[in-house]
């Protein structure tokens, strides 16, 4: 069972969290505006796209080079074809070292493979060290945004949680005290854990270097203090060289925070060498899990994603329903594309491409120019082809037959205007100026919440004929 997919998507507004999501989206929009002031945004986007597209186009070669360089630096590389394999590899590494506690830094890829559950089953305690992830984990909840996992929670909920955990009282307005509490608890973890597990933002094939980007510092701590560092990475995260990596190291924080640098960037090449007192072992776990399969398809560009979270902030639907509604480890527009793409549009994921009004805000926000809106349309066609909705397919077939000829189109117009008109008026309480409050199937979904304008008695083309001959 894939851990990517938790449940079928639920497209309901979530007013309780919408206010938090709006605040986050508003902050992000302001940051985005400042990023556009700082750099020639469109030129930078195109270069970022080129760097990522190059990596995806040459993926097998670059992964091979990456592996060779990581090994040359003393690291070990493990290949996982599936999520289950990746989790098993990591659990195996922990078991072989008699590991009892793990410091885990935020990684979407770890979510994707259900790593926490796998470690728990193996009797290894894995505590999330990212503040938002820690909160979510302690609540038994799930993260709802790539960058801000606790964005759906309120300060009051956090204060209540910390109060329960510590036995002390916390004031929800005293954010510094809440953070200080978590810092204290998690510091203990960094100092005692045997193994640190992180994700990877990008891996530079040129030198076998892993780049870890963050705001809090917990990733650096997880990768520095424990004796063993396990880094889990989707294979698409490789980049060819340092020129490209330098560009992306600026683009990622520009897209998510409006600044050309994140608070902390760690560059790890192999285990500690030459007097560096860091981990004596470095293990890189490379996850495929459906990624190779979408190369060469029209969904390939989705592999360019650098997990900046911009599309989530830009999406008006995400803001209404929240991350959990997508029912998968990746939410928002990128989630609606990558999850069905990687899962080959399983029935559980088939509805995801419809969680969108196709407004295009995601594609516009994407720093690597993934045409997310076009890909959603591609996925919709794939879902219909695989699992047709008979009634709808018949409707569109009839529509195509009629509307590909003017005679058929006009016949529909006459029916809509004249026959359906009286039908609507019969079924509806007309408001007098062409608007009705009740419409027949399939438009009753509309009139449950909105009035609808009745088809005109005389369509434009008839008026034209009458006046112009």
């Amino acid at each position: 069972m894939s851990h990517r997919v938790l449940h079928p998507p639920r497209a309901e507004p979530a007013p309780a969290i919408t206010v938090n999501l709006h605040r986050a989206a508003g902050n992000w929009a302001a940051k985005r505006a400042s990023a556009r002031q700082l750099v020639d945004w469109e030129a930078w986007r195109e270069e970022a796209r080129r760097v990522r597209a190059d990596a995806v186009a040459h993926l097998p070669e670059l992964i091979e080079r990456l592996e060779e360089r990581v090994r040359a630096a003393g690291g070990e590389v493990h290949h996982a074809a599936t999520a289950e394999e990746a989790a098993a590899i990591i659990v195996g590494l922990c078991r072989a070292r008699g590991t009892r506690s793990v410091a885990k830094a935020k990684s979407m890829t770890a979510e994707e493979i259900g790593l926490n559950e796998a470690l728990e089953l193996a009797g290894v305690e894995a505590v999330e060290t990212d503040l938002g992830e820690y909160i979510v984990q302690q609540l038994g909840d799930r993260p709802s945004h790539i960058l801000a996992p606790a964005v759906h929670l309120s300060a009051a909920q956090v204060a209540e949680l910390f109060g329960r955990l510590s036995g002390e009282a916390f004031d929800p307005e005293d954010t510094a005290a809440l953070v200080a509490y978590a810092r204290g608890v998690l510091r203990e973890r960094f100092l005692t854990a045997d193994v640190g597990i992180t994700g990877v933002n990008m891996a530079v094939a040129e030198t076998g270097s892993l780049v870890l980007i963050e705001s809090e510092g917990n990733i650096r701590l997880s990768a520095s203090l424990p004796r063993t560092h396990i880094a889990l990475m989707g294979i698409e995260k490789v980049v060819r060289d340092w020129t490209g990596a330098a560009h992306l190291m600026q683009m990622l924080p520009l897209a998510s925070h409006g600044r050309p640098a994140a608070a902390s960037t760690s560059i790890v090449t192999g285990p500690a060498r030459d007097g560096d007192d860091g981990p004596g072992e470095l293990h890189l776990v490379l996850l495929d899990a459906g990624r190779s399969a979408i190369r060469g398809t029209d969904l390939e560009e989705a592999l360019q994603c650098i997990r900046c979270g911009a599309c989530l902030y830009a999406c008006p639907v995400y803001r209404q329903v929240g991350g959990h509604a997508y029912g998968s480890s990746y939410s928002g527009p990128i989630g609606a594309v990558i999850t069905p793409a990687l899962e080959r549009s399983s029935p559980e994921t088939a509805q995801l491409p419809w969680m969108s009004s196709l407004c295009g805000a995601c594609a516009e926000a994407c720093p690597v120019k993934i045409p997310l809106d076009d890909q959603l349309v591609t996925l919709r066609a794939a879902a219909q082809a695989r699992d047709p909705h008979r009634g709808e397919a018949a409707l569109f077939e009839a529509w195509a037959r009629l509307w590909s000829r003017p005679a058929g189109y006009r016949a529909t117009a006459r029916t809509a205007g004249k026959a359906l008109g009286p039908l609507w008026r019969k079924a509806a309480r007309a408001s007098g100026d062409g608007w009705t409050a009740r419409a027949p199937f399939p438009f009753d979904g509309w009139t449950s919440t909105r009035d609808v304008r009745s088809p005109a008695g005389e369509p434009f083309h008839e008026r034209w004929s009458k006046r112009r001959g």
Partner: protein
Amino acid sequence: MDEASPPVPLEGRAAQPRPGLDLVDEWRARWEELDGRAHRAESLEEARAMAREMIGAATVARWHDAPLEDIAQAQAPAPEAEVSLLVADVAVADTGQVGWAHGAGRPRGAGVLPSRQVILLCEDGVVASLADGLTRLGATAAPPPSSLVLIAGPSRTADIEQRVIRGVHAPREIDVIVYGGIE
């Protein structure tokens, strides 16, 4: 084997260079926007004196680079020390970052655990672009150092209702003292 397509030449700089400012001033402006603190010293001796004054009697975890000797009065292991005392190898004007390579005499814990950090940086280490900074740090060497770090101000989180709090796991207050001239 396929070759990568040649990169499109870019303007290169993150922001319009501000006329009249030198690289150190450009770096400093970015660094301070990120809530870092910066100081200029004409010489290494002056920088050491400034650091001594900033630290006072606080307990220090320091690296063993020569410029850092005889500054701290009281030392403590990194997990307990109040202040860390480091040397940075580069600063990047475009991004406001400060960076270093870990290695012998430069333990990782001292680089991140204490909540206050004082960093000495020679003016020669200030470069324009991140690409330059990475090259200086040895990122493009075969192989690079096992650990490089670039920081851009204090650590921060906005995980609780988007309220920004500094100093989550990594330092909350960072002072960088840039000294000019050659020692």
